[in-house]
């Protein structure tokens, strides 16, 4: 691997990321699966970085899942998106930050489509007016939430209490980065680092002291694939897809997977459990799995946030070995305690995955 070659490509794919005043829209899936990640994102942006970030309870889904499952037409999804843009304009923002990669891709697709076909944009404007009596303005900047963290990665590193380093050996942690497919594969110029060698997460890992693992199937989808997962008859494809990735990364012995998409941490996490329980195969050390975290969770860890506040107990793959490696102090007794010390109940132990 020739690092200089990659740097050259990274330098060619840089995008402009605004400094402040963000309009934030959440992800349907992440709110349910990893709600603490979005909370952490807001905490870091507001508290650690001191930025103005606004969100409104009136925004809805972008329609992406339905769109990619072929259940609603493109014009419908564009009108939904137009409404989000209208909300942004209404609150006086022009820097649109979305938490979801599917949304990010869809927003990019919509804006590019409008650019190519202005008559379609006019039609959607009309649709929005007819349906909601709203007018929209296109965002000045459209970024993904990970772009924002990427922009301030060094700022975060400066405030960090620890690095992505194994405290026992002093070696940097080996980190697999997994980028959501719709981040830059459709429009390479819209993602930091482009499509082939995306830099957005690599930049964070480098800034926070980790070592990047480049394995053959790094480009492969996490396995979500919408229809492959939603239809049970196809679910084997989703699983096999993820399995292929793990088989490919296994020789590199990664300590951690870092992701920037709602579905990816979910599938890279849960399918490890399914693979383990149905075939007996595990990919971490001593029967453990490889923790698959969101970039916010990783940022929170280096910033010294409490792992249970970061929601790490919501992962199927146990994070304790990782926390031990990083020297994070945690109280195992509090793992399954909710707000105000309420007992959330302990999940049943798995038979194969430790």
């Amino acid at each position: 691997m020739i690092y200089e070659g990659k740097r050259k490509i990274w330098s060619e794919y840089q995008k402009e990321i605004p400094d402040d005043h963000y309009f934030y829209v959440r992800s349907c899936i992440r709110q349910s699966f990893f709600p603490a990640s979005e909370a952490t994102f807001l905490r870091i942006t507001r508290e650690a970085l001191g930025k103005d970030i606004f969100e409104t309870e009136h925004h809805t889904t972008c329609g992406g899942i339905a769109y990619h499952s072929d259940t609603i037409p493109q014009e419908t999804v564009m009108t939904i998106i137009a409404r989000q843009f209208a909300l942004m304009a209404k609150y006086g923002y022009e820097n649109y930050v979305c938490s979801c990669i599917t949304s990010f891709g869809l927003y990019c697709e919509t804006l590019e489509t409008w650019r190519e076909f202005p008559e379609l944009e006019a039609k959607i404007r009309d649709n929005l007016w007819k349906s909601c009596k709203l007018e929209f303005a296109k965002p000045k900047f459209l970024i993904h939430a990970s772009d924002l963290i990427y922009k301030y990665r060094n700022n975060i590193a400066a405030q960090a209490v620890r690095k992505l380093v194994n405290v026992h050996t002093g070696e940097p942690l080996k980190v697999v980065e997994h980028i959501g497919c719709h981040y830059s594969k459709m429009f390479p110029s819209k993602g930091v680092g482009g499509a082939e060698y995306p830099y957005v997460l690599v930049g964070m890992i480098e800034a926070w002291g980790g070592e990047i693992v480049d394995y053959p199937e790094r480009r492969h989808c996490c396995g979500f694939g919408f229809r492959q997962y939603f239809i049970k008859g196809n679910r084997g494809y989703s699983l096999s897809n993820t399995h292929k990735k793990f088989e490919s990364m296994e020789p590199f012995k990664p300590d951690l997977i870092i992701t920037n998409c709602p579905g990816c941490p979910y599938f890279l996490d849960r399918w490890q459990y399914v693979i383990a329980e149905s075939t007996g195969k595990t990919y971490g050390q001593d029967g453990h799995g490889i923790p698959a975290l969101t970039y916010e969770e990783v940022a929170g860890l280096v910033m010294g946030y409490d792992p249970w506040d970061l929601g790490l107990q919501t992962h199927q793959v146990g994070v304790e070995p990782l926390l031990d490696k990083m020297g994070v102090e945690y109280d195992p007794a509090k793992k399954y305690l909710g707000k105000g010390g309420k007992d959330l109940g302990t999940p049943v132990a798995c038979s194969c995955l430790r």
Partner: protein
Amino acid sequence: MVDFGFGLVPSSRINLDLFDKEKYEELAAMEPDVRVCMACGSCTAVCTAGRLVQTSLREAIEDLKNARPEKALEMLGACQLCGKCSMVCPRGINTRHLILSITKVYSAG
């Protein structure tokens, strides 16, 4: 083991790393023509058995090169050795001997 109602799906992907070079060379020594096929499909088009069952010499040759000899054998099992393919092959491949040789080399052990 838990049954989730779904599981790993066997890959349909060709894996050239599984290619058995020794066996293929044994075949090529027996019938060197196997190397010169350019996948035009004439053989498949005229195949007598092909009218009745899915079979293709072109595909069988591909299957050998693509590390799927069992598929090749399955396909050639239908062959009646009528020789039409040898008449139409633009590269003059000795198709009947090739078919016999493939069957001989790959069905042994």
